């Protein structure tokens, strides 16, 4: 499992971008989605998740805005930018290549 989570961690940013491609979202929702998709086998640490948000934001791949929740605490939503979409496509292509290579090697 540790190899798996290492590989997954290496693709945190692409995983986040993929979620934002579907719709704008916030930290916990993204993490919840990752958990559901992986059948509760994998969950990002908050620290990892928010570090990735900061990196993506600095790079201009995502932008954030505060939601206007009427009840409870306000949430910070993230939205993917055009350059972010391009970056996602590139990362995905890279991953496909890596996957192909690994498949032929292992």
């Amino acid at each position, binding site marked *: 499992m540790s190899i798996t989570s290492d590989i997954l961690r290496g693709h945190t940013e692409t995983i986040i971008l993929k979620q934002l491609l579907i719709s704008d979202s*916030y*930290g*916990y929702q993204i*993490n*919840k989605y990752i958990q559901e998709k992986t059948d509760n086998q994998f*969950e990002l*640490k*908050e*620290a*990892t998740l*928010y*570090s990735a948000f*900061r990196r993506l934001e600095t790079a201009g791949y995502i932008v954030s805005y505060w939601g206007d929740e009427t009840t*409870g*605490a*306000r*949430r*910070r939503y993230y939205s993917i930018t055009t350059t972010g979409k391009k970056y996602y496509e590139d990362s995905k292509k890279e991953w496909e290549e890596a996957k192909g290579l690994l498949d032929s090697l292992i």
Partner: protein
Amino acid sequence: MVAKIRNYIQRAFDDVPKTKKAMELQEELIANCLEKFNDQLRIGKSEEEAYTAVISGIGDLSELTEGLKERHSLSVETPEQRKKSAVLVATAVMLYILSPMMVVFFSEVVNQSVIGVLMMFTFVAIATGLLVYNAMTKSRYRREEDTLVEEFKEWKSAKAKDRAIFETVSSAYWLIVVGIYLFISFTTLAWHYTWIIFIIAAAIGNIVKAILLWRQSDETK
């Protein structure tokens, strides 16, 4: 339990400068963790279990907070920003220098001295606007990373001596300018032009100040 989670996150931010960025990140983290906590309760976990799940899910926050501390050293001006700022200052200086010429040109060549004066003030206004814009975009850039208190402390200790020198030199400068103005006015008797000396003097004064400040910020880097 809610307060405990809040405390846990706040403690991680203890030694991080209280910038807007840091406070917002803290708020975001707390909101998301509390939502997770409530979800855990909803699926039937006890408060204790839910708390453990939330805290263990947070992971090592220092990788986040370290980034906020490092920001300061990362926020050195990029070459593009430097270039943009240089263009702004250079344009402003050029406008200052050209502005009195408008008066001369319009009153001597076209014989429309009013337009000349208006043109001069427009030039001065644009130039000042450029300088203000340049200064504001820069200072906001820095202040975002630093706490105001630290900045003030630094400024107070380092600048007290510099300010005293600056003020003395500045007052001497303006006395000399008044002297030059009176001298030229009395010798040429062209009073309707000589007041331009004050504007030129102000421009030169600001340019010198800008150069000094620029050097100073280079040294502190």
